[in-house]
């Protein structure tokens, strides 16, 4: 289990970095050139290939090291240079250290022991599989100059999804043109009318005066039948609206409370494509999907201390970084010392999906047995910057789905007999949940 988490961390850092690539197209170009060079010219062992080094770094080192920030292990920007300058250690020492650090420590090497002590006696994982060339590549990568962060001006929304801007404009133009046309027409008519009246006045033609008739409203009031019809209509329609109003009470579709930590499902499930059930793991086996405990967050956020993805004016990088700090404060993680302080304070999330107590809903029945996607009920979570209740969560809504959804019976021995017999009885190929008994009161109410 732990291992797979680590793998995921690595993948995540990859993803994060890729986000940077997208933002910095210039860099991509430059890396591309380097890659091209790497293919065309054979570089000497001494120099190494920073592009290959980068992928090796991400695969092997990034769980504990960052280039510019002390993490589980030290920051590695220009590590070779620094070691040579400050400690007088050459590349061979680095080879030895990477392949088997504990051996170096045991040999009594002064600097190795110093580092070992400094980092809470956590020995670095040995990487005997890395060849000299690999390490050279990694070192080449670490030796790269730090790229300046993107300036504030174009820091906001750098990548625009293909928005239908043109179409929007053309629509507006058409509408505008039509409006102008109508205004012109109205003006024209008014002018014509005015001109005609002037002609009439000029030619002394008497315009027929409108005789004073009974006002329309009075006639309306006096017509009892009409009044009755209107009254009935009015009552019916108000009943309709009152009913509609009453029926939506406590239906919290669209409920989007402000959470104590701005957790963006868009960034996690969308941009980074984390599986819902990685964090909401109990959805597989339990009635509740479970709000992930903070230690699950820290599986990744131990090494992801900053946000490098897309930002908006409202949600800047600083904003997101602040939210990560909130997580650290809650779980009691000291980022500077890279250890837990033990002072934690639980996060009081605001519950969004609230079913009444008299309804029994089981996530595992739907997720594991029924094979439903989370999005079926929870909507496009991966696009939600702030999560909201997508479905009405009414009984009618449940029932509608049970009526139309087929039971997933494939490879499930439990269903074998009952499905064969029931589908024969109902004369259908595939049974819906309702036909299986999913509309019975007692299945959800007890």
């Amino acid at each position, binding site marked *: 289990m732990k291992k797979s988490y680590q793998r995921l961390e690595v993948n995540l850092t990859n993803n994060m970095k890729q986000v940077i690539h997208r933002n910095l197209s210039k860099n991509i170009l430059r890396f591309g050139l380097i890659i091209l060079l790497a293919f065309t010219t054979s570089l000497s062992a001494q120099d190494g290939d920073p592009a290959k080094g980068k992928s090796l770094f991400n695969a092997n080192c990034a769980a504990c090291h960052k280039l510019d920030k002390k993490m589980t292990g030290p920051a590695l920007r220009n590590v070779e240079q620094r070691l040579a300058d400050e400690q007088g250690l050459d590349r061979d020492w680095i080879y030895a250290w990477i392949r088997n650090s504990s051996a170096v420590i045991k040999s009594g090497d002064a600097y190795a022991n110093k580092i070992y002590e400094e980092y809470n006696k956590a020995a670095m994982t040995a990487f005997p599989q890395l060849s000299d060339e690999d390490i050279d590549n990694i070192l080449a990568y670490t030796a790269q100059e730090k790229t300046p962060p993107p300036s504030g001006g174009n820091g906001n929304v750098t990548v625009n999804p293909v928005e239908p801007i043109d179409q929007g404009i053309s629509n507006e133009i058409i509408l505008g043109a039509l409006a102008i046309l109508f205004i012109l027409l109205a003006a024209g008519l008014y002018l014509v009318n005015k001109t005609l009246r002037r002609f009439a006045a000029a030619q002394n033609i008497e315009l027929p005066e409108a005789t004073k008739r009974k006002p329309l409203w009075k006639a309306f009031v006096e017509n009892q039948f009409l009044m009755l019809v209107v009254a009935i209509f009015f009552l019916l329609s108000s009943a309709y609206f009152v009913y509609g109003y009453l029926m939506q009470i406590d239906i919290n579709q669209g409920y989007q409370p402000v959470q104590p930590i701005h957790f963006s499902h868009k960034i996690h499930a969308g941009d980074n494509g984390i599986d819902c059930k990685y964090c909401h793991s109990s959805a597989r086996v339990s009635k509740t999907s479970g709000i992930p405990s903070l230690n699950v967050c820290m599986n990744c956020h131990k090494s992801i201390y900053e946000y490098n993805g897309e930002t908006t004016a409202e949600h800047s990088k600083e904003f997101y970084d602040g939210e990560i700090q909130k997580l650290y404060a809650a779980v009691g993680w000291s980022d500077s010392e890279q250890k837990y302080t033990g002072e934690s304070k639980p996060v*009081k*999330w605001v519950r969004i999906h609230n079913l009444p*107590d008299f309804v029994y809903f089981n996530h595992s*029945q739907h997720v594991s047995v029924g094979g439903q996607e989370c999005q079926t009920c929870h909507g496009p979570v991966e696009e939600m910057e702030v999560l909201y209740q997508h479905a009405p969560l009414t009984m009618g809504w449940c029932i509608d789905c049970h009526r139309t959804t087929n039971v997933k019976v494939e490879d499930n021995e439990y269903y074998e007999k009952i499905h064969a017999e029931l589908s024969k009885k109902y004369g259908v190929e595939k049974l819906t949940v309702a036909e299986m008994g999913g509309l019975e009161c007692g299945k959800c109410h*007890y």
Partner: protein
Amino acid sequence: MSSNKKYWKSVEELNDSSIVETLKQNEFVQEIPVDEFLGDKEALEGSSTTRRDFLKYVGFSTAAASLAACEGPVKKSIPYIVQPQEIIPGVANYYATTIADGFDFASVLVKTREGRPIKIENNTMAATNGSANARVNASVLGLYDSLRVQGPKKDGASVSWDDLDAEVIKQLTKAAEAGKDVVLLTQTFASPSTSKLISEFKEKYGNVRHVVYDAVSESAALDAYQAKYGERGLANYDFSKAMTIVSIGADFLGDWQGGGFDSGYAKNRVPDHGKMSRHIQFESNMSLSGANADKRVPLTPSEQKLALAKLHSLIVGGGYAGKQLPAKVDDAVKKAASQLKKAGSNGLVVSGIQDLNAQTVVLEINEALASKAFDSKTPIKTRQGSDKDVATLVSDLKAGKVGVLIMSGVNPVYTLPNTADFAEGLKNTFSVAFSMKADETSTLANYIAAAPHYLESWGDVELKKGHYALTQPTIRPLFSTRQFQESLLKWTGNDVSYLDYIKDAWGTGILSGGSFNQALHDGVFVGTIAVETEDTTDVSSEDTETPASNAASALARSVKGTEGLELTLYSKTGMGDGQQANNPWLQEFPDPITRTSWDNYLTVSKADAEKLELVNENEATGALNGSYANVTVNGNTITVPVIIQPGQAIGSVGLSFGYGRKAGLKEEMMTGVNAYALYSNFNTVQNVSVQKVDGKLHEFACVQLHNTLMGRGDILKETTLEVFNTKDKKYWNAIPTVSLDHEPVEVTSQDVDLWDEFDRSIGHHFNLSIDLNACTGCGACVIACHAENNVPVVGKEEVRRSRDMHWLRIDRYYSSAETFDGDNAKKEEMSGLWGEKGSLGGFGEMEDPAENPQVAFQPVMCQHCNHAPCETVCPVAATSHGRQGQNHMAYNRCVGTRYCANNCPYKVRRFNWFLYAENDEFDYYMNDDLGRMVLNPDVVVRSRGVMEKCSMCIQMTQKTILDAKRDGREIKDGEFKTACSAACSSGAMTFGDINDKGSKVAKLKEDNRMYHLLEHVGTKPNVQYQTKVRNTTEA
């Protein structure tokens, strides 16, 4: 014919049928109490609010309320910081542990949800004497008792454990210097590690004495066993090996010698290949065992002694030297003796007489029979108290000889007969009481050392010799508590935790190479070698009395003429020794015999009641009232309400322990009277004089006359073993017929059915089978149902108004004895006229059933009729039928018309007259945050105004199905369970899927004994009953 016998539920039904008639017509005996919320007329008239104003206010407040209701409350969800690996929210974990509270000892499984223990279940892996009884099932609620002591206390003020430790160690050394005694007064722990620990404590402080005190003493039996076999323990009995059981005053289905014999007993009660055990009971009180016996002989306690001596002379020989027994009893003893002799090693004799000689006689008889059921090799260790030691302690305390008194698991100020002496003695000594409550004793002690509940503790128990069990915590301690053993470790200067201490003790001795973790996982460990443990009791063989060389004749001679009545004290199924008196489940649990809750009472025979002018009356509501009587033992008088008990031996009365608690419990729970005051010399039998107290009557909360089954017969089918073996099923278990075209047609036939049959042959179809032969009426299922389904407690007043909420009740029927065969013709005519006063009176004249009735228990819950009368009358379709056979109840749909309850022939529907949760008027566990932790999160807590009933534990069947679906497998027989069937240790309840043709319940459905309750109504229930068969053969 099975319907030969007339069943009646109370004496009143025989005497005065008008009330019964009223009740039969009215399910709900009281009007809705509108006055309570409308106020009285005077106040209404005096008010300045006009009707118009009132309507304005109502309109305004309704509008305001509905506007306010539009805003849903914001709910917070707080996840773990670090989620424990074993906890998945929404998924239950089970832990094996052991209860050992000094009275109840049982290996159990604890169901926990999100780290909260919510239910006690049987540990099927551990069948060492004792499955979870009603009290053990209810014990989980004690964990969440709001009146628990939340930390150590000195004179009512909180102190720290450090202060307490310092003071105790100071006092211990002081006592050692002054040459005063240090006494540990404890319950029976039966714990090898605690014994070791106590001997270490003795070594450290010298003059330490360990006194083991059982509130309800088995000292006589212990002494007898010790004298005979040299070890302090109780002979073990395996009732599953006994085919002829003779019990003289032993309620072995109750709490006799620690209890737990019922599952073994029930095994031979089900006729198998035409054979079943024969059980003869000689007793004075009507007990559970007597109620289950094939033949019950009522006799006074002193006659019991004579009967035992006589039995001894008939089986072992040696002549009989006692007084002459009444002819009827004498005959019964002789017959019992001949049957025992015939049974030989399949016979068994047990006795509950608290007398050394009597217990020795029992051991001798069983040895003479070479009884297979009698096991003297692996004695039961769960009772170790010594009456003599306790008596010495009390006098020592009074004399000021004791320097330090440390108590754990005992409440002597409540349980001792000479409480005043003990309380006085407490003043002369420094005392610490380990207690969960500020109870009678601990409030008088210098310090209350807050003790944890057993679900928060570590421990080990030797249930019987070589059979060990472990106690493990299932929740982190809720309060600042520390258990006795942990404290002893501290006071002996030992730094290890008690867990490590147990591990060490087990590793070096008990386990002999076995794995501790495996033992902890299983909860039990059966040792391969006997481990010598320290003698904990300080009861050396010189200390104990030795029985007379000829115990039987000594026993017979000891019986002298008695004046007045003989009182037998007993422990009630619900309350036991009274430790759990603050447990509302147990208070509301109706006694299996009297069907009375929230009380104890003096049981008196009908004849004696007439003599003493004691009466029982029913109010028009059906509520039971009874006279008070003064009961005097040696000048000690208490006033007790009286219940006239059919089957009570004339000349004897009974009274139960466990009630009359005054400290450490809520006011509502301070019910009954303290019978320990009469328990002088720790003898359960006392000579008493009883006088009627004139004046008002006591109001009982008795469910006896409530929910009558409309007087319809064929409710409880019964036959004898002889008929069962020789006659056709049609004779003793006929399906009722109706006339169709002048031809009798069985009611089960589709031709006479009002409804079309729904095809339930696909999928699951649940059935519950209840074997009336195996059911002992112990009531474990009732409490298990409470715990599983969040059934509310309504309190004494509401029970009295017949608004009890039990989803599962155990009806107890008294029957007339087998003496009226000649009146068959007359009787059958009368049975057709059931309900008319004449016939009831006629039966009364014809029989005198109150003297010694036969008894049958019948658990009744929702019968889940396939053609349910309740479903057709619900105007809002709140109750409907599922394909799987369950009758569903959608609480959120119910509007409370109660039509369904009126139309239910079984009277199993319960109406929520009030909101029972979070309501100060019902200040039980559902009214505080702590108590609500016991609620099952999978079952909704019902609100006011809705009907509820047994759901056949649909949450459990659904979970079983879901688990199978998730694993992608078929469901095996035995996986489906209900709370009641899982709690039933006697195997009376079998639940399963009848569409699974190989399942046990499907076979039971085809059994000859199977019948449905009120079959002629044509409801086609999914609960089956197995006809009761009695082994009446006198051979």
